[in-house]
């Protein structure tokens, strides 16, 4: 356990060393989501409706997608590809570490830091769009949402080639977001 804690600390420090690029990424991703919100506001303000989704549903959907993308998607498959191609993976094989726990620890430390950054971006978006956001009223809805997030996390093996795909493309991610919509509140 101690070696994984050390690994966690080293990767945490490594992530902090390149914090500027991570902050720019999160800020830029917030702007990207704001463009999508412009698209949907333009559609809805022209008097249109997408299925039975209200404008609040749609905005909440995209804001959640932003949070989930940041927390769930993992780019360690790219590191793994580089290590295999360049032959550095052999060094890893002789280390007394379990590969799954190793990658899990590395990923966990980066994601905790990203969660802190994304909370700040989320708060800014929430401030400007607070009239559109909707939160579930029932505790069970929150439970299903968090449970589906964990299932989603578990379904993301380290070398998944399409790991950069948007969370909205994945059925489980869609289910997580589905739980949040007001008319579908799971009570």
């Amino acid at each position, binding site marked *: 356990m101690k070696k994984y804690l050390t690994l966690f600390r080293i990767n945490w420090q490594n992530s902090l060393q*390149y914090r500027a690029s991570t902050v720019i990424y999160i800020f830029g*991703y917030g702007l990207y989501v704001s463009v999508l919100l412009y698209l949907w506001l*333009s559609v809805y303000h022209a008097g249109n409706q997408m299925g039975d989704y209200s404008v609040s549903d749609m905005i909440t959907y995209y804001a959640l997608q932003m949070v989930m993308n940041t927390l769930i998607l993992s780019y360690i498959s790219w590191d793994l590809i580089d290590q295999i191609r360049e032959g550095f993976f052999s060094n890893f094989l002789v280390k007394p570490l379990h590969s799954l726990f190793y990658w899990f620890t590395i990923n966990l430390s980066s994601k905790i830091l990203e969660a802190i950054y994304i909370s700040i971006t989320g708060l800014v978006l929430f401030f400007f769009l607070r009239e559109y956001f909707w939160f579930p009223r029932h505790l069970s809805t929150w439970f299903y949402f968090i449970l589906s997030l964990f299932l989603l996390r578990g379904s993301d093996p380290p070398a998944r080639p399409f790991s950069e795909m948007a969370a909205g493309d994945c059925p489980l991610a869609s289910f997580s977001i589905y739980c949040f919509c007001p008319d579908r509140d799971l009570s």
Partner: protein
Amino acid sequence: MFETIRRHLFLYGSFLKHNLKNEMIYRSNFMILVAMDIFFMMVNVVFFSIIFNNVKTIGGWNFYQLLILMGSVGIIRELAYLTFRQGFINIGDYIRTGEFDLLLVKPVSPKLHLGFRHISLTESLGEGIMGIILVAVGYAHLPDKHLLDIPLYLFFLFNSLIIYYSFCLMINSSVFWIIKSQELNTIVYYFMETARYPRDIYKGIGKALFTFIIPISLIGTAPASVLAGRSTGPLLFLSVGVALTLLVTGSLIWRVSIRHYSSASS
């Protein structure tokens, strides 16, 4: 002047030939890349088809006009990979490992060398092919066509390429300070994804932000509006003005930033 152009064209041709051979070694990878690009472009077409089942226009653009917009962004992306894009993606590695030293001592501008060295025909080939098809299909379905449409469209495609280049230049100038470029270029990728939405969806401060600071509202819309019959004098002049301003600003920022490069050795 002509000698310089001839030398740069020769360099470009040599790098293109060399990189193409490299890419063709992995044939299955090449086929998958092209097929995936085509697939994702199709996903976008389906996405807009679903929206258009519920709406008549988005920001005043109908479905066929949006096909031209989507296709134009695909073509611009392919042109970018054929000129500079892949080089900027790799710049972080050059700076982190100190390999950028080698670019500085070569008898050619470092940013040109960086761009040319990594030019790739296949990285976005599927998008380019699909882009041309979408533009052709969209244009064929529009009622009003003019003789000047196509040359004007090509001019504004080139103009958008300059905007895209300048934006990449400005963003990647910061790599000399922050060292890592992967996240920066992921953000550029995301922004280019949104260039396929018409400029008319933006209002207020967002319109100014996505015109002058992050110019994604012009990159696709300006050329597409020419073919779609939605171009206006102010939009086209704005597009050329932004391209020139960003090119000058981007080059200045790059020049200042490059002075902060401190190699990787002790």
